[in-house]
């Protein structure tokens, strides 16, 4: 633009023109305003920011034409930024930020929040990272709870045996579920028994954790059970995830949980459901109350319901695991020296687990099939996770011999050397109870040959 032709002439305009020309490049001085407008809009933002600076420096030599021109340019620059929306998520194919129709779905479906709710991976990361800061500030971690065999046990009404008929007269009313533990849920044709201690467990755990339900059951069942466990919706809210909401068949995953993996713990009785998140998992001893449930897992003994008994409330699995959770919570927040955001609950879990059988040196005898690679056996791995050292050779440092048969050479050696001779269940029990069990409770019987 040639300012020399501009209608306003002031004493400083000559200097200013020179400055402008230098700034805009010498070629432009002879071009007409229209041509230059085209030229500039092609040439990106750098030039126009210069132009704006020029305007700020001295508004004296400025023509009316140039002002409006710059204004137009600014608009055309800013508007594309506004239009582009990354579509971080969608509900019913509508982008949650710009409201436009989004055709391709990407990311993770969060069906438990709303059907057809999708969030991008980036958005999930964003939500998680803002949320974890808040949670850590409130001293809360995430806890994902399984329903069946962990918090409760259900059976189909048709599968109840004659010996369980008495239960029908003992059910608690559905009107006030906050104190009962045995319910007949007629809409689902189910009888449900809550695990002893579950009320207190939920109450205390809710102070340390943000809790999710994650079950392999159907959605309707999950919601019904959530109503029994949490009638006032104070623990779980809308965080009830069912089979229909997972991203993979027959698998549970933390990908649909809006909590960071480094701060999430899982309570479940089925290890195989969580192949990707074994480090977050606290395995629970299965709760079988009903006969049908025992059968399903191949136990042919009398069920708790038939024996008219139940798990002990103060010493049951939930009470044990609550203590463990408390310890983990305590270690995570008060005993670690790392930066709060860098702490990893999986590491805490590992450390805590290693304490259980610390200092034990274990030799297995006739526990694994002879051709089996001993290091790969589940019990071997479990023992190592619990902090024990495993060995195949006997030597004076061995403390425990694990065997199913008291007649083997190693077993006899253990008796002779006054080492502990225990049944493999000792390891499993220690694993479930998070405490080294008294060895004399797990004697090895002499097999008659």
């Amino acid at each position, binding site marked *: 633009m040639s300012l020399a032709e501009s209608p306003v002439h002031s004493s400083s305009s000559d200097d200013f023109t020179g400055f402008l020309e230098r700034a805009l490049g010498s070629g432009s001085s002879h071009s007409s305003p229209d041509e230059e407008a085209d030229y500039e809009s092609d040439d990106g933002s750098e030039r126009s920011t210069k132009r704006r600076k020029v305007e700020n420096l001295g508004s004296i030599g400025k023509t009316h034409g140039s002002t409006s021109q710059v204004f137009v340019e600014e608009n055309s620059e800013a508007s594309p930024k506004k239009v582009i929306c990354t579509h*971080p*998520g969608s*509900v*019913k*194919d*509508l*982008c*949650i*930020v*710009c*409201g*436009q*129709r989004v055709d391709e779905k990407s990311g993770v479906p*969060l069906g438990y*929040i*709303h059907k057809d*709710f999708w*969030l991008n991976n980036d958005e999930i990361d964003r*939500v998680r990272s803002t*949320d974890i800061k*808040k*949670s850590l500030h*409130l001293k809360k971690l995430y806890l994902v709870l399984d329903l069946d065999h962990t918090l409760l046990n259900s059976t189909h009404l048709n599968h109840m045996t004659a010996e369980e008929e008495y239960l029908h007269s003992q059910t608690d009313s559905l009107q006030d579920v906050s104190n009962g533990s045995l319910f007949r849920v007629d809409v689902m044709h189910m009888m449900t028994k809550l695990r002893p201690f579950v009320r207190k467990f939920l109450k205390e755990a809710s102070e340390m954790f*943000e809790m999710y339900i994650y079950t392999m059951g159907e959605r309707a069942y999950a919601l019904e059970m959530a109503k029994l466990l949490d009638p*006032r*919706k*104070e*623990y779980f*809210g*809308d965080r009830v995830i069912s089979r229909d909401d997972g991203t993979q068949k027959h698998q549970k995953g933390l990908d649909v949980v*809006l909590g960071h993996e480094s701060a999430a713990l899982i309570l479940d009785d089925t290890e195989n459901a969580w192949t990707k998140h074994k480090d977050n998992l606290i395995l629970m001893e299965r709760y079988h109350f009903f006969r049908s449930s025992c059968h399903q897992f191949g136990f042919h003994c009398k069920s708790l319901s038939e024996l008219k008994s139940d798990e002990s409330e103060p010493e049951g699995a939930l009470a044990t695991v609550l203590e463990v959770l408390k310890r983990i919570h305590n270690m995570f927040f008060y005993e670690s020296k790392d930066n709060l955001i860098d702490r990893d609950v999986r590491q805490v879990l590992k450390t805590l687990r290693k304490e259980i059988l610390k200092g034990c040196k274990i030799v297995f005898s006739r526990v694994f099939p002879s051709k089996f690679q001993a290091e790969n056996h589940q019990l071997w791995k479990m023992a190592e996770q619990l902090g024990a050292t495993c060995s195949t050779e006997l030597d004076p440092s061995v403390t425990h011999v694990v065997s199913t048969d008291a007649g083997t050479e190693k077993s006899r050696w253990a008796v002779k050397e006054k080492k502990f001779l225990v049944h493999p269940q000792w390891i499993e029990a220690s694993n479930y109870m998070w405490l080294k069990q008294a060895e004399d409770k797990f004697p090895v019987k002499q097999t008659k040959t």
Partner: protein
Amino acid sequence: MQLHPLHFGRNLRENLVAKLMKDVEGTCSGQHGFVVAITGIENIGKGLICDGTGFVTFAMKYQCVVFRPFKGEILEAVVTMVNKMGFFAEAGPVQIFVSNHLIPDDMEFQSGDMPNYTTSDGSVKIQKDSEVRLKIIGTRVDATEIFCIGTIKDDFLGVINDPATA
């Protein structure tokens, strides 16, 4: 409108109108939105008898009040669910989602047994059953329901009545 021969007679017209109201009010059509109330009947066509069943089909022209939210419209809605991603609200039969991107930046999510969005000084709180004024920025009209995306990140939008203080 199909009518059973049972209803023929003196009250044919009344029966037709009653059935129309029963069948149409409260439904949603993709084209027009929710039919709230029928206000008048323009005309009723000649009946067409259906062979075999005896049902008679009448073409009916009627006027009604409809509810169909548009982009840019301001609505008042009741919050139904609050979570980390934002909140859901209902304006009559219409469900609206407001993402946390479209909630003013000074409002933060607070978890707990009553999840809510609160300003740092605690003076404004959005939780379940709060009434909010919001602007529709996107709609999706299906055969049986309408779903909207809304925003409260604009002047004069936000909580209009707080159940906790009311």
